[in-house]
């Protein structure tokens, strides 16, 4: 199964592209599991401040993902 990841703001500095397709094998896969695997692959993400949205709705980290979901990692912006 696969989800599409969108990274915003300063998070794009921690990943190779602002949009990534992410595959996984296994049954239950929650946001928290996704984040754990992202931290392993992109350690600069760890410790950053952000919220997660699935299909344009903010969710908590126990939210269960399904195939085809669009997952956004949204940090607060600072500039003005």
């Amino acid at each position, binding site marked *: 199964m696969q989800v599409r990841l969108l990274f*915003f*703001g*300063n998070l794009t500095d921690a990943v190779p592209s602002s949009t990534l397709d992410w595959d996984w094998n296994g049954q239950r896969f929650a946001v928290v599991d996704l984040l754990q695997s992202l931290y392993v692959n992109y350690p600069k993400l760890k*410790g*950053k*401040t952000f*919220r997660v*949205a699935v299909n*344009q*709705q*903010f*969710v*908590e980290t126990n939210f269960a993902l399904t195939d085809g979901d669009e997952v*956004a990692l*949204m*940090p*607060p*912006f*600072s*500039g*003005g």
Partner: protein
Amino acid sequence: MEMEEDFLVRYQRQLSLSEVGLSGQRALRAARILIVGMGGLGCPALQYLSAAGVGTLVLVDDDEVSLSNLHRQTLYSPQQIGQKKVQVAADWVSSLNKEIQVVAVAEKFSAVNALNLLQYVDLVVDCTDTFTARYAINDACAEAGIPWVYGSIAKFEGQVSIFNVPNEEWHQGNKRGLSHSLNYRDVFPNPPADGEVQNCTESGVLGALAGIVGSLQALEALKFLLKTEGLLVDQMLTYDGLLHRMLKYQLRSSNPSKS
């Protein structure tokens, strides 16, 4: 007072919108807005809010015009370098329309002066560039029960929302039994660590992007005053200027009692 005939001519192009009309235009004239920060977002926000006929504008910023501001802060000119931004901006508003009451406050917005400043206004537009100022705005507005329009930028991206809207001003109402819509602390409970998120000085910005986001903030403020549909209550709009991608996210409090 501007002659009624001039008033009708000046605002004719927006009076003809069903969302504005004479009653909406009078609501704009009666409205009082506090703009915090007269930089890249504050300049376009101020220009469109004053041009639209918002009657009272309070401008807060302790900064002075500098040469490195001019690529994005289009109110200012080289002759004004070193002058207080709020004074230059207030003079600009007065030259545009002497009917507008404009107050220049050359101070940094903080928890110290926040509640005093908020007692004079109906709405705040956050055009600041630090988390310290933004959380001070959020917390003071939450305490005073005043809504505020959020805007911020990161390189080619922007975020816009309206927070802390009282139920009676929000025709859709909320279903959680709360007196106000979500605020910034519901979305991001605590500021990032110092240095984690760069501001425009550190990461760079094109003036046109700041112009777009500041204009979106002005539009949202005007929609609030005109009580139109489609406010970004409990939502965050994101704009990516490189991809020209605009997305709207449904917010949810990280505080379980408000979600």
